[in-house]
């Protein structure tokens, strides 16, 4: 996707080996991240995250649905990512589908926990309205507007911000309904409940170039990667998900090392992201008034 000459490739490799990357960052430093919330008024919650020149939007739509028969006490969450052709001409038509699917699956692994919903960043039982009958279905849609590498981390950050921006309408159930009938529900227009997003993990992708690995790789650096490991870590430093991409195999000890480095890097990322979300929410509230 990115064409680099041999000289430029060597320059990038050298920079990573010497711990001074092309834009002056060290191996474990992120680009400046900024978050804007409430960018899509029609959605229940939305956020736009920029990480350097990478720009993504996440929106959250809640709909009333029926819980799965096997898990009557849990709501449903699905994640879908789309790559806009404005990000790169190759995404035009069906060109972005492969990457979209990869990102969607990656985020589902990192944020949604197991099949049973255990370990999910979002408490699925908080989405239930009437057990076995009515629940909220959350549709999380991500859109890549501009791509300069590290899409997975940016999307996870945007989703985390969007979730904290989300208000789910309060629902009152009419008492009369019983038995087999679908209960009648009344969706409030005024009262909303907020999610507890403290459990939503962040994703830190470590890209291995040469002997070293870096966080927050740009597109040029990603083109030089031998393999990448994305680790999702929550506030307590627990690993929630792990994905390895790229062809080259990794020694198990390297993977363990990468996981602990990712955990360390996630602490700074969570702190930065939290303050960005807080200031974005403050601006958003000001605008609302």
């Amino acid at each position, binding site marked *: 996707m990115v*064409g*680099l*000459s*041999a*000289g*430029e490739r*060597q*320059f990038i*490799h*050298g*920079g990573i*080996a*010497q711990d*001074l*990357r*092309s*834009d*002056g*960052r*060290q191996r474990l*430093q992120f*680009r*400046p991240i*900024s978050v804007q919330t409430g960018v899509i008024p029609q959605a229940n919650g939305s956020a736009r995250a*920029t990480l*350097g*020149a990478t*720009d993504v939007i996440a929106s959250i739509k809640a709909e009333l649905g029926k819980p799965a028969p096997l898990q009557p006490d849990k709501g449903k969450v699905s994640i879908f990512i789309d790559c806009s052709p404005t990000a*790169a001409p190759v995404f035009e038509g069906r060109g972005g589908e492969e990457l979209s699917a990869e990102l969607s699956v990656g985020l589902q692994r990192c944020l949604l926990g197991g099949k049973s919903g255990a370990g999910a960043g979002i408490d699925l039982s908080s989405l239930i309205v009437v057990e076995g009958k009515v629940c909220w279905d959350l549709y999380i849609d991500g859109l890549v507007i*501009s791509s*300069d590498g590290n899409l997975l981390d940016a999307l996870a950050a945007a989703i985390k911000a969007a979730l904290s921006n989300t208000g789910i309408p309060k629902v009152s159930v009419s008492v009369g309904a019983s038995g087999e009938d679908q209960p009648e529900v009344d969706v409030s227009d005024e009262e909303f409940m907020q999610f507890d997003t403290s459990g939503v993990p962040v994703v830190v992708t470590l890209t291995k170039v040469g002997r070293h690995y870096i966080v927050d790789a740009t597109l040029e650096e990603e083109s030089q990667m031998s393999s990448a490991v994305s680790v999702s870590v929550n506030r307590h430093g627990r690993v929630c998900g792990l994905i390895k991409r790229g062809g080259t195999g990794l020694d198990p000890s390297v993977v363990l090392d990468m996981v602990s480095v990712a955990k360390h890097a996630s602490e700074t990322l969570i702190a930065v992201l939290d303050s*960005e979300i807080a*200031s974005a929410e403050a601006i958003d509230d000001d605008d609302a008034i």
Partner: protein
Amino acid sequence: MMRELHVSLNQTQRVRLQAAFQHISDIGSQASSGLLVSVSDTIPVNNEEGILKGHGTSERDGQVVATLCGVVERVNKLVYVRALRARYKPEVGDIIVGRVIEIAPKRWRLEINFSQDAVLMLQSMNLPDGIQRRRTAVDELNMRSIFEENDVVCAEVRGFQHDGSLHLQARSQKYGKLERGQLLRVPAYLVKRRKQHFHDLEQYGVDLILGCNGFIWVGEHVVPRDNEMVEDQESTLKDKEQSYTQLEIRQNICRIANSVRLLSALGFAISVDAIIDTAEASKSSNIDIKDMLGAEFYVQIAEREVQKRISLLKKKRG
């Protein structure tokens, strides 16, 4: 593909930046000579007879109006708008930096941010080692040993052919392949045509090439070679690590590259003086290389530009 830098400012920084830009536009309106128009602005033509409406203009209610944002240009009776945010428009003699995208019979095709690909013919360049080229079939087959796909190349605009295609030439030692550095892309209008586009910044050990097409090369200084070609195809990893750019020079390269990124994000004209000034300002105020792209330095440079323009204006008025 041009990627914009996003800077998130806090409240005070935003106010400071707005004030700085307000200053600049105030100064600009006092000193501007050209006529800047945006879409639907009327272009005054003083009811001249037989005005020719060129690119970016249209007629509405008997008046010439602009359909683009840019600078009004006049050539005799022709009025046109030169758009600022547009692709590069080559002129003969321009020095450009481009990337090889294809090797075709006897020619390379280069991406130079023009509306079409530029052509560099094998016959319009001197070989890197300076020897006389023999026009043989073998010579054509060996083109990849000179430039490969994706190589970054510096050349000069030779002219347009009859069919409208753009031809380049590289008939000097200073043109040719660029290695050991990084290529930056900025909007082409930020780079003004100067006498000198090659800069050897001795104090930094850095070569800087400001291509008129908005491609800017920042790389390690190389002495123009005029003898043998280097044959180190199969080097070991250890050799490779030893041949990496020295850390000190790399720091300078990154600092200068970030100066260029910053100036382009602010929309200030990119010249050697401006780049060095920005780099020195970052050094003297102890800004880390990576923090040069942060909000604080962004605002600082905007304010610095205001001071520069004010002092320039004072000098002009004497």
